[in-house]
């Protein structure tokens, strides 16, 4: 990525780029939209079926962000957001996309306050990528109901 802007600001040897800004974006989004608390955690996410959304950062430099939640946690968050007791899988997926869109926009507005950025429309995908070079994994405990996972990758694959 020589000559391009590294939005995640990875210094040599730094393993957790932009962690503070991401935590702020996640906290703010869950608090304002769902009245839920999100705390950074190193805990293990629940195994089993997860719902995953992905968004591409198209400019100023390409990157991709994955946002994943165990299915049950996704349902719990959606119930909070919608205030409805009856939920559909489509509604949960829709909420995951909107959350990712909001978190990503909030993150980029914080780290690039005076720069235009361009995002793709978020979409659902089968799973988060396996841990690889150039990717960074963050986890947040949501109201002690479960753990969400956010993966930043600097090159869309």
């Amino acid at each position, binding site marked *: 990525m020589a000559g391009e802007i590294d939005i995640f600001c990875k210094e040599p040897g730094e393993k957790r780029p932009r962690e503070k800004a991401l935590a702020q974006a996640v906290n703010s989004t869950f608090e304002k939209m769902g009245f839920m608390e999100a705390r950074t955690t190193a805990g293990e996410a629940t195994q089993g079926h997860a719902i995953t959304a992905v968004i591409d950062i198209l400019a100023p430099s390409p990157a991709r962000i994955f946002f994943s939640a165990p299915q049950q946690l996704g349902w719990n968050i959606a119930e909070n957001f919608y205030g409805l007791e009856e939920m559909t899988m489509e509604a949960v997926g829709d909420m995951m996309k909107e959350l990712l869109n909001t978190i990503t*926009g909030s993150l980029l*507005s914080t780290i690039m306050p*005076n*720069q*235009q950025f361009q*995002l793709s429309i978020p979409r659902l995908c089968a799973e988060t990528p396996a841990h690889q070079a150039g990717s960074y994994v963050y986890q947040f405990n949501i109201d002690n109901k479960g753990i969400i996972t956010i993966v930043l990758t600097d090159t869309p694959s």
Partner: protein
Amino acid sequence: MRILIVDDTTTARLFAQKCLANIGFHDADFMQAGHGIEALSKIRACPPDLILSDLMMPEMDGETFLKILKAEPDLQDIPVLIISSAGNPAHRETLLAMGALDVLPKPFSTTEIYELLKGFLNEEEDEDGWGD
């Protein structure tokens, strides 16, 4: 009062509607559209008193939608509040110059949207105030 909410995700539309109801627009008639083209069609058929619109949407984005709306003499006076996760100060100025009422970044709280829209509550003639 008739309010149109334009956003491509159901979550965002429901969240905005819930916030508006909480701050005093509980008697409003809410309309919804998933993108700019659908919004323009609904507005021409039944003009709302207030529009809340996202920026990043398929088919027609919020900026194009705003530009077309403000070019139509019969519709250009309808206030449009832009709600977006993809904003920055320079873009905000552009949208305001195009005629947007204001630009509210996502995520937003009930208090933040109340501050921007409290003037419209008089038109709603709501005596209960918000937060009840």
